[in-house]
């Protein structure tokens, strides 16, 4: 793969055209999950547990089944009881048995909202009535919500067969701690012994939901011959196919999934909740079944990300050289193992070139919904603590916090705690751009503060398929297996247009169903523009090679004597002959006579995704009377490798930053003593609205990733990593209060103001 070098040579990459799916989305024509229909469809609905932890003694569905209009009722008896099996299909490790039990509880319910049964009926009203007729007898068990309480001796145990992994000797008693994991380099004790200044603190973060505006939805049908059709909104139709096949024991070739337009996901739509149930209900009823979640379902029944407790200790010499960094992180996994503890540990200090680092983590189950991936899973949690500690360290040292970071910045050759040595990265460039930005030195008023924080995310590559096909009139069709969640059809068409040398408007990108293109991993991990873009670029390059051969055939010269320039075949030099250039359209017209249709589909398993780094500067004004924080100005600097469509890159950064601001200031799952979520709606789970925010300035730094033909690095996840610490550090600057708990909501800030005013008790 040759690197398509200088930015000045690019005609399409780096411009800002209108996206191919744009008109459909501004006119209401685009079909999202809940908009899709199948002929003869009926409505499927689920019954959810009202208890956070209980044994299911019995489920009597007989009354519901007899209700006129009910076409089928299912319970776990209708879902195969599959064995434990680890898999990696979504955006993290997943145990198929846990996934099955999460879709439909079998012997126990493990959180309020856990599905225990489902019905299919001729309409909403009948389905609702049928749910009320299902009689579930529970034996209520003690529950545990908090992570520390779940780890304590005597805590209610969720799974009798869960023994802490990663400890020797293997434990003999069941525990809510699913896993203990450690990454370490050097010797932190020796490092702390060299330190002149040490900061040490414990922080907590609350679980937060991805809060995509589109609730999960699907429509599914299984025919008498066992063939399954599913249309669903998700971050991966191949993921839906894989999970549905596994959970229901169906061969993959018998399932065809069409991806509807997706109304946001942020990691939360990388797993299934409804699809296997819809297929099971279709089997029972003989009809296509449509299922749509309510917003309350989304909050109670789908994965937020973990909340956690993070202890951090960092030491440095007087001149600001960090000598050791250490963290212990306990993350809530929800009802089944699988918190993002590993990436939380790996990312905490990945921005720094450190000799001595020790990170220890615990993956802890409790009676909450099973967590799902959320944008840079784990990294925002650990970075909130680590970047708050780095800020405190800078204060203690009397150093500029950007200078402290520059002094310890990771660079090419820096070794990470998880064993990987950084390649070409742009962290120093990002820090320098932040420092040079006028925002960093702008004046501040009373009760106003400025914070900075930085963040890291690996970005991933993986399996992708992309195709480029030349149409008879010289236009091109681009197909990929990656659901387009934020404009990727535009970037795919742009990369293909660049390589083919034709205008962007001549290229159309679509996402066909799972039977019509090769396997493609989920849209997640900031991988699509990188990995799927690599497949599309390689396919376009293969097409260009073919076009050159066709021109050579038409001219009756050797293919080596043909060059491709600006969308035309031209003779390589005077010796090749004096032929007029052959435009792509002219070659396309003669395709039948030169070997048939012109096109290429390439599947890759892309390696070498370049990691991304960001630095965010936040100005905040805090009202000490009300505890309310107002974001005054926000600048997000990020190394994006190379921006294919800069507007959508900026959009990723702005959107990620604002999700982080919500995480910092407002968002949290609130549980009452009964283990019920008290705020399962957008009124009480408050995500940022337009009037909460200023413009968000995105500054693109481009340190090209040498492993991608255009230099692309993933961009979607990095921007949610720095905001919480940036906001926290800004609040400290505004009112000189150290905040340790998220969200830093008005009541929390009020309490901190009051505590600071109160006379200090003797310690």
């Amino acid at each position, binding site marked *: 793969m040759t690197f398509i070098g200088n930015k000045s040579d690019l005609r399409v990459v780096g411009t800002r055209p209108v996206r191919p799916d744009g008109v459909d989305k*501004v006119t209401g024509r685009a079909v999202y999950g809940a908009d899709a229909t199948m002929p003869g469809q009926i409505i499927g609905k689920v019954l959810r547990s009202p208890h956070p932890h209980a044994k299911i003694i019995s489920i009597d569905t007989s009354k519901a089944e007899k209700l006129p209009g009910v076409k089928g009722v299912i319970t776990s008896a209708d879902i195969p009881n599959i064995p434990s099996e680890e898999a990696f299909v979504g955006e993290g490790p997943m145990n198929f048995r846990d996934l099955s039990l999460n879709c439909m509880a079998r012997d126990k319910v493990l959180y309020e909202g856990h599905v225990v049964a489902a019905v299919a009926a001729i309409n909403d*009203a009948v389905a609702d009535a049928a749910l009320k007729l299902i009689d579930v007898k529970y034996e209520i068990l003690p529950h545990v919500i908090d992570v520390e309480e779940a780890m304590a001796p005597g805590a209610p145990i969720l799974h009798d067969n869960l023994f802490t992994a990663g400890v020797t000797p293997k434990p003999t008693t069941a525990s809510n701690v699913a896993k203990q994991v450690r990454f370490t380099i050097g010797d932190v004790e020796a490092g702390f012994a060299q330190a002149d200044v040490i900061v040490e603190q414990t922080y907590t973060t609350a679980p937060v939901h991805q809060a995509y*505006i*589109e609730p999960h939805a699907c429509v599914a049908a299984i025919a008498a011959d066992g063939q399954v059709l599913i249309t669903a909104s998700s971050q991966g139709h191949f993921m839906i196919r894989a999970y549905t096949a596994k959970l229901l024991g169906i061969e993959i070739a018998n399932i065809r999934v069409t991806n509807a337009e997706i109304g*946001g996901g942020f990691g939360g739509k990388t797993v299934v909740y409804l699809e296997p149930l819809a297929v099971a209900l279709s089997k029972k009823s003989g009809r296509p079944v449509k299922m749509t979640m309510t917003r309350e379902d989304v909050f109670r029944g789908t994965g937020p990300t973990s909340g956690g407790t993070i202890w951090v200790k960092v030491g440095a010499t007087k001149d600001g050289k960090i000598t050791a960094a250490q963290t212990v992180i306990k993350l809530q996994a929800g009802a089944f193992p699988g918190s993002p503890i590993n990436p939380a540990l790996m990312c905490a200090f990945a921005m720094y070139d450190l000799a001595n680092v020790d990170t220890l983590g615990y993956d802890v189950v409790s009676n909450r919904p099973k967590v799902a991936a959320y944008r840079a899973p784990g990294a925002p949690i650990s970075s909130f603590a680590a970047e708050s500690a780095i800020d405190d360290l800078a204060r203690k040292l009397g150093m500029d916090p950007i200078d402290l970071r520059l002094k310890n910045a990771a660079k090419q050759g820096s070794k990470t705690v998880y064993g990987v040595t950084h390649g070409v990265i742009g962290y120093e460039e990002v820090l320098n751009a932040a420092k040079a930005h006028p925002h960093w030195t702008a004046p501040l008023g009373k009760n106003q503060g400025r914070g900075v924080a930085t963040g890291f995310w690996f970005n991933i590559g993986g399996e992708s398929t992309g195709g480029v096909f030349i149409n008879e009139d010289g236009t091109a069709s681009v197909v990929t297996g990656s659901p387009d969640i934020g404009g990727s059809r535009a970037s795919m068409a742009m990369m293909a247009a660049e390589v083919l040398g034709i205008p962007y408007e001549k290229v159309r990108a679509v996402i066909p169903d799972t039977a019509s293109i090769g396997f493609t991993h989920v849209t997640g991990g900031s991988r699509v523009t990188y990995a799927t873009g690599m497949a599309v670029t390689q396919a376009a390059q293969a097409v260009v090679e073919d076009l050159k051969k066709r021109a050579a055939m038409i001219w009756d010269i050797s293919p080596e004597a043909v060059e491709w320039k600006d969308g035309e075949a031209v003779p390589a030099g005077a010796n090749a002959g004096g032929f007029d250039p052959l435009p792509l359209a002219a070659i396309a017209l003669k395709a039948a006579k030169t070997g048939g249709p012109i096109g290429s589909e390439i599947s890759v398993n892309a390696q070498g995704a370049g990691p991304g780094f960001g630095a965010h500067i936040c100005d905040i004004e805090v009202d000490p009377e009300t505890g309310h924080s107002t974001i005054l100005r926000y600048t997000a600097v990020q190394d994006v490798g190379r921006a294919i*469509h800069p507007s959508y890159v900026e959009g990723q950064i702005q959107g990620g930053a604002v999700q982080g601001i919500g995480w910092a200031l407002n968002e949290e799952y609130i549980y009452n003593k009964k283990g019920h979520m008290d705020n399962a709606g957008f009124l009480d789970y408050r995500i940022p609205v337009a009037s909460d925010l200023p413009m968000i300035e995105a500054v693109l730094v481009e340190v090209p990733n040498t492993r991608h033909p255009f230099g692309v690095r993933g961009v979607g996840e990095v921007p949610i990593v720095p905001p919480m610490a940036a906001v926290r550090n800004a609040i400290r600057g505004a009112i000189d209060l150290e905040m340790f708990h998220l969200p830093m909501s008005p009541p929390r800030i009020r309490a901190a103001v009051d505590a600071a005013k109160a006379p200090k008790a003797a310690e």
Partner: protein
Amino acid sequence: MSKIHVETTINGEAMEFLANPGESLLDALRNTLNLTGTKEGCGSGDCGACTVIIDGRMTCSCLVLAVEAGGHEITTIEGIAQGDTLHPIQRKFLENAALQCGFCTPGFIVATKALLDKNPDPTETEIRFWLAGNLCRCTGYDKIVRAVQDAAAEMRGG
């Protein structure tokens, strides 16, 4: 319970349909009239994805009963463009990349239409407060606000 006959005007056309007494206007639009451009994000009036204009007023269609639509004029996202000519608001949303997933977009465009019909020259603050009932989780609102400013400027100029 028998259905109720509703006569109304939607996007300038006289329409009639049958609705259950408890059915929301949103459900009638989506399920009965097949106008699925209006979205449901919450069903409780908190997200604005179902925004329509009723007699000139911006309204969450999930909070209105379908039968209440009788005799009123309703504009949905499907009625914003003139045939195949996009409304300046729609064009500016595209040019400014003011959408990522696009799910909240119909609600934002309809809400913006209601704003600019009333106030052709809103300040940034006025735009942000007018749109505070429309949730977007993708964009951080920056490019949406810019698109509204651009559309307003073009519409004033034209």
